[in-house]
């Protein structure tokens, strides 16, 4: 991000605001989708796609690229909007989200959307896929970095911990897991549904380098991805504290907004709020 005369952090914030508006508009128009967990990871995705990942929107399948596996596939709208803003496909596609015959499925299909690195939506599978991709990169001596974005409720899946064990066993330092720690899942708070804490010491005991940040602060996100790069010999997990529904006052921290679509009135209110700040 080197725009002359523009503060790069400010530019990322503006981009995130645009992505949040797309997310809400897509979900409201389609009357399907997952606003809460999409809004919580917008800043993480925008930071990755606009300031971290080595990618070329004109060559979305280039083997040399860095990859992002959206293990929490229900946040597809955030990924689609970010990819479209980054130029992987036209912004007009966003209006087709969730419709029959659309490339933009409610959960991402890698065969339909340029820039989507894995087909996900059944939780718990992304970290294992990421490990496979990172092992292949090492085998072929590519210096690609693999990021896997996980939900905090998703961490309840046993497969995550099988993968966590395997990632550290294979000492994959080209892989970074990011936990979207919004503390809410589908039916309620993570701590009531099935507690996952203490997360940092769980990952540490599995042999990971653990970083904790505020997942809505771009400087912290960028610093952590940089720090992950310099940690050799083990995988890094960035535990990003976030707010489910971030940016939309009536959605924030509410599990009811996990999978509910805003009405057109609610959409207007939400868009106005985003414009205000």
């Amino acid at each position, binding site marked *: 991000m080197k725009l002359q005369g523009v503060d790069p952090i400010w530019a990322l914030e503006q981009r995130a605001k645009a992505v949040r508006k797309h997310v809400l508009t897509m979900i409201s128009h389609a009357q399907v989708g997952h606003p809460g967990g999409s809004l919580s990871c917008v800043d993480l995705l925008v930071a990755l796609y606009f300031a971290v990942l080595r990618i070329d929107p004109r060559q979305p399948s280039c083997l040399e690229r860095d990859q992002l596996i959206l293990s929490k596939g229900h946040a597809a709208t955030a990924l689609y909007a970010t990819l479209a803003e980054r130029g992987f496909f036209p912004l007009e596609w966003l209006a087709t989200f969730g419709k029959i015959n659309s490339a933009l499925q409610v959960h991402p299909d890698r065969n339909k959307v340029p820039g989507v690195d894995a087909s996900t939506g*059944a939780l718990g599978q992304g970290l294992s896929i990421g490990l496979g991709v990172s092992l292949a990169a090492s085998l072929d001596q590519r210096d690609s970095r693999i990021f896997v974005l996980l939900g905090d409720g998703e961490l309840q899946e046993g497969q995550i911990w099988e993968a966590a064990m395997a990632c550290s066993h294979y000492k994959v330092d080209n892989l970074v897991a990011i936990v979207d720690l919004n503390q809410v899942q589908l039916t309620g708070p993570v701590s009531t549904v099935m507690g996952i804490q203490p997360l940092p010491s769980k990952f540490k005991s599995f042999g990971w380098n653990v970083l904790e940040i505020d997942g809505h602060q771009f400087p912290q996100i960028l610093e952590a991805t940089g720090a992950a790069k310099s940690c050799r010999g083990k995988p890094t997990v960035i535990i990003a504290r976030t707010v489910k529904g971030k940016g939309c006052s009536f959605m924030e921290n509410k599990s009811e907004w996990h999978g509910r679509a805003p009405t057109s009135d609610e959409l207007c209110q939400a868009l106005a709020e985003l414009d205000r700040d």
Partner: protein
Amino acid sequence: MTAIRDAFGKALVELGGKNDQVVVLDADLGSSTRADLFAKTFPERFFQMGIAEQNMMGVAAGLALSGKIPFVTSFATFVTKRACDQVAISIAYPNLNVKIIGAYTGLFSGHTGATHQAIEDISIMRGIPNIVIIDPADAEEMRQAVPVIADYRGPVYLRETRDEWPDIFGADYQFAIGKSTTIIEGQDASIIACGVMTSESIRAAAMLAKQGIKAQVINMSTIKPIDRQAIVTAAQQTGIIITAENHSIFGGLGSAVAEVLVEELPCWMRRVGIPDVFGESGSNQELMEKYGLSAKHIAEVVMHTIKKGR
């Protein structure tokens, strides 16, 4: 029109009131499966297991080993595929009294698309010994099936449709495991359906009647053990069998019926169901049309098969 999942949720609460051995397990989908109604009424007999379906199956096995009657609830795709080995080895092999509830069946997953559509759940469960498989046609059949499967001893897989579908049965209907019901009589062809495809088949029969074709419609809500006698009788009566299911044409009701027919009385047969492809996001109506599950499509297949059979 009644949402079948609402009928399930209410029936489960009613059952819980009558039988204190009934316990319910959920994997963070209670608001979708309607298991949350039970959670509110009987919090001490409700176990929230988090997004961890394999563990949930094992825990249900343990509860059943200790005399409880666990109802394990999640989406059909997760209880059958994600937790498949736990279902087979921890539950079916020791023949434990666990009721597995798979919600959001077939293509009808509230727009969520391929990752949440269960197009092969019946196929998977049919391959595992000991498991009874039921796909209720409407809210009334669901309401009745819940206490019946609780009384039955052994593992049961119950398909739970998400949305509203036309009411077919009245309170005079009597659901029984393994018994099919002829809903419409007719001698030109037999449509054997399960789940909400029974509804579509009834509409198809009405369309056919307008063209002078009398098709009988049989509701085969128990897919395993299947009502062999009813299938053979239908073949004798009409010589033409069409199956209709909200499931892949591989391994589900169509396959089960074909297996009976080749052994007992081979005849002209066609399967209506999801062709061998993954689904996608879309409304139920759009999906039915695109993937060939609509009443109109069933009627066309019936006519085509009758022509071939002549």
